């Protein structure tokens, strides 16, 4: 049972304090969603966990490992995969190359498992399977998001950090992606930390919710409870 535990995390983004003492736990095998208004520090939180930003103080532990301020390429080797905001794929690469990229670091030792992992994600997202040779630049927004998630999944993560997968996508596509994640989590025991601005969608699938405002945790409770808390929603999410 590996939990993600964040304690008193402080991160500066440029001259701005983006995270100001954030603490929470994401339980193993659950979907934890981090919600909050624009600029609340959600993305910075994920970027700090995956090593893209340096934490000023505080700790991040993953299971019994302390991963604070490790390099991203080390953290991904420990089973933490990050899908950054904005359908992060390499447009000039083919779909297959984008997926393979995520498993490069395992290829030498586990080349058979890499093949299995690739066919698994192609099963998960059949629309990508039809387009493996196409360049990623020619995909639709939703397909790119699937591709970005696939890239992360072939690294066989135990913790998936998902940053705004719904950004700029049609509601139908969002639903489809979120459901795939949900299914994956329930069937394989993958731990998911999902950052979303669209709180309703996120809380609908999540087990647990963490609400950020101006870099601080203002609420940390089961998702169902948070969904029901209309006062909280009015105060921090504006609806």
């Amino acid at each position: 049972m590996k939990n993600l535990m964040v304690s008193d995390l402080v991160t500066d983004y440029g001259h701005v304090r983006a995270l100001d003492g954030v603490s929470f736990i994401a339980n193993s095998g659950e979907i934890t969603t981090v919600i909050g208004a624009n600029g609340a520090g959600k993305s910075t939180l994920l970027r700090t966990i995956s090593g893209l930003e340096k934490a000023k103080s505080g700790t991040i532990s993953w299971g019994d490992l302390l991963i604070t301020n490790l390099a991203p390429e080390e953290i991904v080797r420990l089973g933490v995969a990050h899908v950054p905001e904005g359908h992060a794929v390499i447009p000039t690469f083919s779909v297959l190359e984008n997926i393979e990229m995520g498993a490069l670091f395992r290829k030498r030792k586990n080349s058979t498992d890499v093949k299995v992992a690739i066919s698994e994600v192609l099963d998960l997202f059949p629309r990508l399977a039809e387009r493996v040779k196409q360049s990623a630049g020619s995909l639709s927004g939703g397909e790119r998001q699937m591709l970005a998630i696939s890239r992360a999944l072939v690294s066989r993560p135990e913790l998936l950090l998902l940053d705004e997968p719904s950004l700029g996508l049609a509601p139908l596509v969002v639903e489809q992606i979120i459901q795939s994640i949900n299914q994956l989590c329930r069937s394989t025991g993958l731990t998911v930390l999902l950052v979303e601005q669209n709180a309703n969608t996120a809380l609908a699938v999540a087990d647990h919710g963490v609400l950020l405002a101006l870099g601080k945790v203002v609420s940390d409770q089961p998702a169902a409870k948070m969904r029901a808390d209309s006062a909280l929603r009015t105060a921090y999410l504006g609806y």
Partner: protein
Amino acid sequence: MNTFISTLITGTANGAIFALAALGLVIVWRGAGVVNFAQMGQAMFTTYIASNLIASGNSYWLAFIVALISGSLLGMIIDLLIMRPLAHKKSSSATKTLAGTIPVIASLGILAILQALAGIFWAGEERGFPTPVNSFYFKNGDGTLPFSAFNLFVIGVVLIVLLSLTYFFTQTGAGLGMRAAALNPEVARLSGIKVSRMRTLSWAISGAAGSLAGLLITPSTNLSPNTLDLILIIAFTAAVVGGLDSPLGAVIGGLILGIGIALVTTYGSPENVFLAILFVLLAVQLIRPNGILGGKQVRRG
């Protein structure tokens, strides 16, 4: 012999070497986002090493291999000592606007240092440099054919280098990783690719390619600390003509430059060569800013 044909062949033979130098530039640009103005300085330096080995009685091929190895080592040293610290510094300092050009300035500094060191170590004297195969043109009865075994060797080497690079970049994991690291370092790092290591690798490969160009061009230019300056300018133009991010484009650009220079020399005037280079460079950038084979969005700057 038909003047036009012999012009084309001479141009192709030179163009193949320009192509190698341009390839070196393209690899570092793709791999590390740096236009390396020191490249031919590095090549000059390693060719001096080879020249000294040959002068002290070693075989050409030993010198050849040592030069290629020292070329890649020199590339790695430059990355580890200078370019990597610069890349780490980029985001933090107040010189955001110069971000694309700071490595250029650094490479000019490196060029100055390498040329000065070569002068200090090996005096400023000019030497020749041997070819591994006969550079006398093939005999054809009383006359000669317009090419030599060395010309064929050069063209063959360039083809082999191009093919192996294409294979490396498209078919191997390290090649994929290098391309990813260049195109989107953040996604690459999140994918577990050690981006800094990939950059160092591209410096090493480019250093070897540059060294190879130096070994092949110096038989016709001779060797002194400055003789390869012109080659850099031609290689840069060739790389831009081909699209700075395309190895195949670099080769085509090199051939265009080689043949173009030969044509201008034969049918125009040698005095117009530099103006012609400038004209081609400006024309390509205005008409096809990403070069003949360049991708659309890779242009950074």
